[in-house]
């Protein structure tokens, strides 16, 4: 398979590009930020995602979805990144759906229709503490009657307070540091004992600290197998990490395009600043880094879609590389814009903020570079 988009994928890219630029450009993010929206995204827009079919990209055809792959999900995410569109797409339709694919018929029937129509929002309750360390999950799920009783706290649950259901990773066995003994649960947000403390993040998205106080769930709430949650979690994280990498490619490309355009408009010393070699070389280096990041993200997605064993390594490389490249793009973006880049009125700062949030999501570049070293035996 050649490492570029095929004709169908290019058509989807055109559709997604027109949709995001038309319905949810950066002005849309500003609007929701400025009115202090408690969800941080538009439910109407989320329904439009459903009408466009984006929400069903990773849902199998037997469940009413499009049965497409990570390449297609990434195409939509890149446009989301380019326009800084706020939406539950990454958490719900990419990572969440990937986890639910491992669930039984009843659970899929329960959640997929609402996800497909853009009405249901999922929250991912994985992280405990400020850094992503999934193997260190300590939250407990003890057997209780026919089900389980959940106790613990989760952090960085994006859109957690607005979610209908939380996918919760908790320990049914083993101890922190072990991959054995983890179990994934589908927990209704409104279940007794679940409390979400929503906080606004630097990029205006809402995330929650979620506390679980003797939350009772039945055995039917288990996604996959008890104690074997690491497998499902891994699938979910791969999807989320690659998706976040795509979104960062969009954020980085958006910031870079805006900056290169600025270099062609801004005059100082009587000339366009884009004529200065000191800036040209940095812009060219940035372009090169962004193209390399774009390539490895697509490679990771193709490998995931093929079910290739090399996918896990490539996903971590993609998340790390896209993280470094997009970070360079937003830093150079603000610097090359000069004073105007520091103003709230100008958009480039918003790119820097979104990039920072995506960098942390499901492991930053350091986390993934470390995984690359581990996977290569050093």
């Amino acid at each position: 398979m050649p490492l570029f988009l095929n004709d169908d994928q290019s058509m989807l890219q055109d559709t997604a590009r027109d949709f995001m630029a038309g319905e949810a450009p950066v002005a849309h993010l500003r609007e929701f930020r400025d009115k202090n929206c408690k969800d941080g995204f538009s439910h109407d827009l989320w329904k439009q995602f459903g009408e466009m079919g984006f929400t069903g990209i990773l849902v199998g055809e037997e469940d009413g979805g499009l049965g497409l792959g990570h390449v297609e999900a990434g195409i939509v995410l890149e446009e989301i990144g380019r326009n800084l569109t706020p939406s539950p797409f990454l958490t719900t339709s990419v990572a969440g759906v990937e986890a639910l694919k491992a669930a039984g018929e009843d659970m899929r029937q329960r959640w997929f229709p609402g996800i497909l129509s853009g009405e249901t929002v999922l929250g991912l309750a994985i992280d405990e503490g400020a850094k992503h360390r999934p193997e260190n999950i300590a939250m407990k799920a003890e057997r209780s009657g026919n089900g389980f009783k959940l106790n613990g706290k989760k952090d960085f649950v994006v859109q957690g307070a607005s979610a209908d259901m939380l996918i919760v990773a908790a320990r049914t066995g083993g101890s922190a540091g072990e991959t054995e003994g983890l179990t994934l649960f589908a927990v209704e947000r409104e279940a007794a004992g679940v409390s979400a403390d929503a906080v606004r993040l630097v990029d205006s998205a809402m995330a929650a600290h979620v506390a679980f106080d003797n939350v009772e769930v039945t055995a039917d709430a288990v996604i996959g197998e008890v104690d074997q949650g690491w497998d499902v979690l891994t699938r979910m994280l791969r999807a989320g990490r690659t998706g976040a990498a795509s979104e960062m490619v969009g954020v980085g490309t958006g910031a870079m395009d805006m900056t290169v355009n600025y270099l062609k408009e801004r005059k100082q010393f009587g000339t366009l600043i884009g004529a200065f070699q000191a800036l040209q070389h940095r812009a060219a280096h940035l372009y090169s880094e962004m193209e390399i990041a774009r390539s490895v993200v697509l490679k990771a997605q193709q490998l995931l879609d093929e079910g290739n064993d090399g996918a896990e390594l490539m996903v971590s490389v993609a998340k790390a590389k896209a993280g470094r490249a997009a970070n360079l793009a937003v830093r150079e973006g603000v610097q090359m814009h000069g004073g105007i880049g520091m103003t709230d009125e100008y958009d480039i700062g918003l790119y820097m903020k979104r990039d920072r949030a995506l960098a942390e999501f499901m492991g930053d570049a350091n986390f993934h570079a470390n995984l690359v070293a581990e996977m290569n035996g050093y």
Partner: protein
Amino acid sequence: MIDLETFRAETREWLEANCPPEMREPVRDERDVCWGGRDWTFKNDAQKAWFDACVAKGYTVPEWPKDYGGAGLSPEEGKILRQEMGRIKARPPLSSFGIWMLGPALLQFGTEEQKLHYLNDIAQGKIRWCQGYSEPGSGSDLVSLQTYGEDKGDHWVVNGQKVWTSYADKADWIFCLVRTDKTNKYQGISFLLFDMASEGVSTKPILLISGNSPFCETFFDNVKVPKDQIVGELNRGWDVAKYLLGHEREMISGGGLGDGSLSLGSKMVTGLGKDAMGRMDEPMLRAQAAEFDVDAIAFKAMSERFVDEMKAKKNHPATPNMMKYAGTELNKRRHELVMAAGGSEALEWESEESGGGAKARTWLRTKANSIEGGTSEVMLNVISKRILELPDS
């Protein structure tokens, strides 16, 4: 066209039968690389057998048309052949500037007669080519070159000097940029081919910081070049030169891929050892190796995409400049890490254990990567002007 999975199976079978085990070992010294040419002597029977098998099958240049010595493979088939050769770590049967640089230019600009003659010789490894581009006063500003070809009716008489001519002392023929009109800078250069055995050609190797002499100074003193040995039109050699430079830059960027193995860190750790956690015993080097591996694996994906897009004619024509910039900077970083991991052992210059100072010499050699074929700074200029379309100063 047979279906691709059948082709893969057949290719696997053919490689199994024709690629000797010795040819699946990593390259250890210069003679492990088969350059071909009039004076080539094979290092061993395995090298010859592999070369002969590939020539017969057209696999020295698999995607060139059969009439010109290739196997006429489609881009998809070519990719499968590369993947299968990579899988068994097969060495290239023939390395040649004819394959990497002149061939593509001839395919684009050559007459049918030239293609039949020169391309077949390249494919069969009969002629070893060198490249006459840089001059003492024309490095990054290549178009200022002064070597002059005077029109003498049915031939030119060429006088001048080239420098940094790779393997000029071992080459049979040269593709050479020669000024044929002194009044026009860009449209006054012609692309000529001639025999290095011609009267008036002499070469002098240049000793480099690596202690080796892969480059020469090349002198032309009244060298006669027949008129049919021009590629493209008179005075339009710069078009051919630029096209060929794209392929040269692509070739040099290949250094960024290293020896094809995916992880440098996994090699470094064998010398450095591991701590109780199984991690490289030098935490700062481990971090640098991990960052390097991220960049190197990502560059490999970029390289795959570049080749796929080029075959489908989808990429920006200036993309090889980006590949060259990224690949060479990466390769220099690789060898800085190899030296850091090697410690004092990597300083050895002559000992047998060090393979005659292989690490140190290779490290020094890679410093030329971001100079030869256009410096990194020139590459960044080209990217900013042609791809980003930033204004001229």
